């Protein structure tokens, strides 16, 4: 089954990307013609593709960095407080984590709504529209993505810190190490395996954000200014019936994530992980 629903579609994805496949072939019964790398040539010749690719990479990088920073900082904070505030923060984070992407997106849109949202009132921004500008729309989506993905990082890193024996930390403190020094020279190396896992997971998740962009910017923003690769592929395939172009974008995504996976596997191997 895994083969049927995973390997075969990948094969077909590659196949479609080499053919001319549009509405005429899907419903009109027109013969499919082999294009070779024609679709890729068209894709790589399209300035919009490069623009979307750049936006995707920058957006994913921003999401990963903010998620990791917030998650790690809060994990450290969790170790400093007593049970009650810790429980409060944990529960709030679990709530954010559990929220479906669709509802998270609509709720954040409502919070930042120019007419009825509380955020603009609080900040005194009048009816400033967050989804109008390219950067501010991306920023809004980024906030939502960080909100729903930092809990995973926080919980995992917190569990990792708790697993570090307290004697080690006490010894370091006795030797006169500063907090920063303890983090850098003791905690960070011990947490490295966990940090690798959460980083790679975040890269993979944030690189293929779909729902948030689709819902919050209404399918890619004004004139497609907020498109990322995933949404772009969807729009090409299902909105413009350019199935082969959409597949070609899918292949590009697949290759990029495959590269990330290889790095991940090598890092695991280096840690002496036995499969």
């Amino acid at each position, binding site marked *: 089954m895994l083969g049927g629903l995973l390997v075969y579609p990948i094969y077909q994805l590659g196949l479609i990307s080499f053919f001319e496949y549009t509405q005429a072939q899907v419903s009109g019964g027109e013969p499919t013609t082999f294009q070779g790398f024609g679709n890729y040539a068209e894709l790589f010749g399209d300035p919009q593709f490069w623009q979307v690719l750049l936006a995707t990479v920058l957006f994913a990088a921003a999401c990963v960095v903010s998620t990791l920073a917030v998650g790690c900082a809060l994990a450290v904070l969790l170790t400093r407080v007593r049970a009650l505030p810790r429980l409060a923060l944990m529960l*709030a984070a679990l709530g954010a984590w559990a929220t479906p992407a669709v509802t998270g997106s609509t709720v954040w849109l409502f919070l930042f709504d120019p007419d009825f949202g509380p955020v603009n009132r609080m900040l005194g921004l009048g009816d400033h529209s967050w989804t109008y500008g390219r950067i501010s729309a991306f920023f809004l989506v980024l906030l939502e993505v960080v909100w729903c993905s930092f809990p995973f990082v926080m919980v995992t890193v917190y569990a990792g810190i708790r697993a570090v024996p307290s004697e080690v930390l006490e010894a370091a403190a006795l030797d006169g190490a500063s907090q920063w020094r303890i983090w850098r020279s003791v905690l960070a190396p011990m947490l490295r395996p966990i940090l690798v896992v959460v980083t790679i997971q975040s890269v993979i998740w944030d690189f*293929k954000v779909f729902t948030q962009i689709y819902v919050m910017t209404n399918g890619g923003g004004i004139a497609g200014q907020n498109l990322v690769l995933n949404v772009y592929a969807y729009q090409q395939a299902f909105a413009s019936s350019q199935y082969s172009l959409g597949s070609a974008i899918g292949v590009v995504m697949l290759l990029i994530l495959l590269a990330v996976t290889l790095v991940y596997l090598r890092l695991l191997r280096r840690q002496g992980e036995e499969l």
Partner: protein
Amino acid sequence: MNLLRARVRRPGRLAAEASALLIAVVVAFPLYWMVLSAFKPAGEIESSEPRPWTLAPSLDSFRRVFGQQEFGRYFLNSLVVASCVVIASALIAFLAATAVTRFRFRLRTTLLIMFLVAQMVPVEALTIPLFFLMRDFGQLNTLGSLILPHIAFSLPFAIWMLRGFVKGVPEALEEAAYIDGASRARFLWQILFPLVLPGLVATSVFSFISAWNDFLFAKSFIISDTSQSTLPMALLVFYKPDDPDWGGVMAASTVMTIPVLVFFVLVQRRLVSGLGGAVKD
């Protein structure tokens, strides 16, 4: 010396606790606002002076949601998809995880690496070929078109995570069971199964959430027969970009979020320990 340090550290800890509480409030605020807006009467939602409380809670938005477009049916559809995915993937993952941990066979390592790689495949990139696959099998517009892919995509992660739990069961136990005359099947279901149940629960949460929250497949595969739609699509009925019915959207969001929230809180302890296990492994 000790006393001194305690005195120095106290304001620091109070500050840390205050900020932890503050951050908790900020993080929880969107959810609070969602539930609050769902209960606000229409006039208060559309007011330009939004207030963080309401003195006249009403169920109007919920009535509108459940009245419109067979919302109950969407809810049921979502429930069917999610439970089929959870049950099927839990069973298959349990058997597969046992197979790859307890038996050594050719291609075992290759298989494990494949599971790992399969986790990285962007599901979204496969929507197009899956769409044609479903069309060729006449599965478009059916719940099956949502159930099958979700099982396939949640399996690799489930197997990967369960592996650690199966590994944790000592092999001596297995030998003892055989010596006592238990059959393979009996050991599997009466001894191993209860022991890895906590891990199974943790992985089920992930399958449940990915199926429950799915938006892309629901959007792509259920194209004409809206009676087969699931909740995320129903939510967007209320959300029209030019003139959204915020009360309806928030009420529908609340209805959609609460089951996941309940599920999550119920199993959170196991989830956290399960994650720890998976990461350490």
